[in-house]
């Protein structure tokens, strides 16, 4: 039987996370996953670099009388949203203002779940992009599944704060795409941190970055090693999965029967974590043909691909994506920078969505991540022009709930539902407008960004004393 995201360990663990705990308590503390799955070896090693993110204790927040896009397909007009103890506490009309806490007058404002970017390199390719900080891609072998993107994250990358000002509350940092297996991605809460652990999304599963197509074959073919062709790519994937299957069996046997403990292998550990459903595959893959091949490889080795990224041709195989329960992460309109990005249609996201596959916007860009609402708007309109009936209440899922699904965190964030993390954006108006800005961004119920209050606008260490020794990078009132 094909494993799906619904029946993997990931879902089990996230339920454990959701068991959770008030915001003041580190969510991993609530259960932990060792106990959950003592029946299996621990390949994911979630506890090796555990999340130390602790949301501040959040006073209640009532957003009153706003237009609410819930992320579950609804648009609620003149509606209140109550955030309490870091969670969505209630959504409705006439909610009572909390005695202590904040009231946000929502007239004319729109409210959405926090934006989630499934594909970012912030921290790994930080600004300024000088040579010594290009830490996003271990381009030394076609399989570097042993590297973890989190180990490169420079938390002081000033671009995190810019993304926050664009409404992004959760993002996955992925390794680059030069390798067949690029390594592990990490899901972060977009909060200031002294360490990457301070930013790690508690309980979120790891991702494994894989790459199809031009990049691996160019990088390694150029060095005279496999792969130099797309068929070489596929041979590389399959051999690795054969090895990983053997590795997993060895550990499973040891776990069941005891005996001599096998040697650990970091590369195999990550792949075995995919095979047992703990680690989610995020596959850079432009072409329809290659997506179809990759889904067959997943079938052959019994794992599930979470999401095809940069899926410029997802529309060509949208029905297959739906059938295989694989998401596609896409741009609104980028194209032509390489051959596999030549067959772009602006209706890509809409066509994938209409075929009932899980569709989403993604950025892969420090600029794009600040404007995902605009990018979603363009994709929505392209869908409408194609003749599909797509409204904002649905399109909003392309930047919220669907990326949450892709990251395996949809049980706990990605929509405005009672009990979910209070990751919420208050917009100055309809978010699908170029003129609209994220005014207030809440993460776990805390006001992490307030456009009206410079005191609640984070800036990284890098920004202090830059351009002005006594001031900040941009003078007060400067719009970032």
């Amino acid at each position, binding site marked *: 039987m094909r494993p799906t995201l619904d029946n993997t360990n990931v879902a089990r663990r996230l339920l454990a996370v959701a068991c959770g705990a008030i915001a003041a308590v580190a969510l991993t503390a609530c259960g932990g996953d060792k106990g959950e799955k003592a029946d299996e070896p621990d390949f994911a090693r979630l506890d090796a670099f555990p999340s130390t993110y602790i949301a501040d204790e959040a006073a209640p927040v009532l957003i009153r009388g706003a237009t609410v896009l819930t992320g579950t397909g609804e648009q609620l007009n003149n509606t209140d949203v109550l955030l309490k103890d870091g969670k969505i506490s209630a959504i409705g009309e006439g909610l009572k203002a909390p005695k202590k806490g904040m009231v946000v007058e929502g007239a004319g404002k729109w409210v959405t779940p926090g934006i989630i970017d499934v594909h970012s390199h912030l921290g790994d390719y930080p600004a300024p992009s000088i040579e010594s900080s290009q830490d996003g891609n271990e381009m030394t072998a076609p399989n570097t599944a042993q590297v973890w993107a989190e180990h490169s994250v420079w938390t002081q990358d000033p671009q995190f704060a810019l993304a926050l000002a664009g409404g992004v509350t959760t993002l996955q940092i992925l390794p680059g795409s030069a390798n067949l297996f690029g390594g592990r991605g990490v899901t972060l809460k977009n909060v200031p941190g002294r360490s990457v652990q301070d930013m790690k999304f508690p309980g979120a599963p790891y991702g494994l970055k894989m790459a199809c197509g031009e990049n691996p074959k160019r990088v390694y073919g150029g060095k005279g090693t496999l792969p130099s062709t797309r068929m070489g790519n596929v041979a590389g994937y399959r051999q690795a999965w054969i090895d990983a299957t053997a590795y997993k069996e060895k550990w499973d046997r040891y776990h069941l029967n005891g005996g001599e403990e096998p040697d650990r292998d970091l590369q195999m550990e990550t792949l075995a974590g995919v095979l047992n459903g703990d680690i989610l595959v995020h596959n850079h893959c432009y072409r329809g043909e290659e997506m179809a091949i990759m889904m067959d490889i997943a079938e052959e080795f019994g794992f599930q691909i979470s999401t095809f990224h940069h899926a410029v041709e997802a529309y060509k195989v949208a029905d297959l994506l739906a059938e295989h329960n694989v998401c596609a992460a896409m741009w609104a309109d980028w194209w032509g920078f390489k051959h596999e990005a030549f067959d772009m249609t602006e209706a890509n996201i809409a066509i994938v969505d209409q075929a009932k596959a899980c569709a989403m916007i993604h950025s892969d860009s420090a600029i794009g991540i600040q*404007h995902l609402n605009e990018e979603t708007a363009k994709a929505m309109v392209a869908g409408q022009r194609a003749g599909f009936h797509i409204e904002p209440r649905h399109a909003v899922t392309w930047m919220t709930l669907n990326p949450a699904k892709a990251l395996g965190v949809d049980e706990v964030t990605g929509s405005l539902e009672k009990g979910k993390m209070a990751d919420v954006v208050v917009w100055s108006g309809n978010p699908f407008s170029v003129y609209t800005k994220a005014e207030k961004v809440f993460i776990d119920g805390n006001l992490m960004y307030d456009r009206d209050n410079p005191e609640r606008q984070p800036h990284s260490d890098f920004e202090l004393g830059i351009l002005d020794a006594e001031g900040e990078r941009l003078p007060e009132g400067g719009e970032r």
Partner: protein
Amino acid sequence: MNIKQLATIGALASLAMAAPLALAQSLLIKDARVVTLTDQGTLTMGDVLVKDGRIEQVAEDLGGITADLVIDGRGKVVTPGIIAPHSELGLTEIGAAASTNDSAVQDVSIGAGFNPVVAFNPRSTLIPFNRAGGVTRAVVVPSSEEKIFAGQGFAIKLTGDFDSVTDDGLLQKIYFGEYGAELAGGSRARAYEQIASALAQAKEYADNRDAIRRGEWRELDFSVDDLEALQPLLSGEQPVLIRANRASDILQLLALAKEFNLKLIVEGAAEGWMVAAQLAAARVPVVIDAMGNTPDAFESLGARLDNAALLHKAGVTVVIGGPGYAGSHNSYLSRQGAGNAVAYGLPFEEGVRAITANPASVFGLEGGVLAPGGVADLVLWSSDPLEVTSFAELVVIDGKPQSLENRSTRLRDRYLHPKAGTGHGYEK
């Protein structure tokens, strides 16, 4: 021919494909919001009459006047066509496929003399796609990976016709700042010195042309081709587009421009706002990426979203190009950049001007405004032209409605409902 068609919202896009529309000699858009960018300002509801490729009249109500084609513009907005100020349209097809790129050369003997105009391909797929995005004209600029002098730029209209180059030898492109320093051997000082000495030697060459050609002169550092190519800069006929982002780099360029009497345009200008008063005083315009707000280099630490607004406020002529992350393929996204600039304080009309009238005036091109007698390059937008949810319903170049079909729409229509089987191979 006397075909009167009152287009409806939905039918307009397909109408634009119809033969009678393409052959219409006169065109009347009625009751649209008209952003003229002339002394006429913006008409809340107005008519635009186009005849024989020119704009005949713009008025609040042209009354009983009729035309071969009449379009109902109610609820829609007419602007001049977008002019892409810094593109490689027609010089590139696929970024990473070297064989499809003609914008740069790896030949050390060619610098300022390089002119890629003969490589221009009007049948590039980028042209119909950007045209559908509302781009009617573009400045095409070479690039360089070896020398700070990239060569000469030209201008095109996006008709896709073989004779669509409108202005050859339009400008010189030079790199200063971080990239210029890298190309010049490691320091801005060297890049500056190279530019200054090239200009000085171009002058020397002009004054002693015959002796130099006879070989009766000291050996110069630049080829005769390069020095010839720099002559129109010295006479102030041709603008020179020089990349610089850091405030201090921009000031150095202003000094250079003063010394050689250059018609300077600064490209990049991420920290332009810090020296906006000096730019304004020197009447030097800028071509910026209005969405480029990350401090992605040490030369652009001051990058910010209200750069355009601050520059404009100081009196600088601002031209907005496509976002740097998207490249020539998405040149039309300059309007999203302009929309963001407006969101961060640039007045709306200035936002439209920054992608139309300003590039026209800065580079000396036709179009850019809706002025009687002027070339009829215009776009009818479904709504606010700077909004991400609006789109071009009608694109007119030289008075002729253009096709809005392109590979993106063709692929969309082929795969609207993807399914198994061989059928897609027979879809048009």
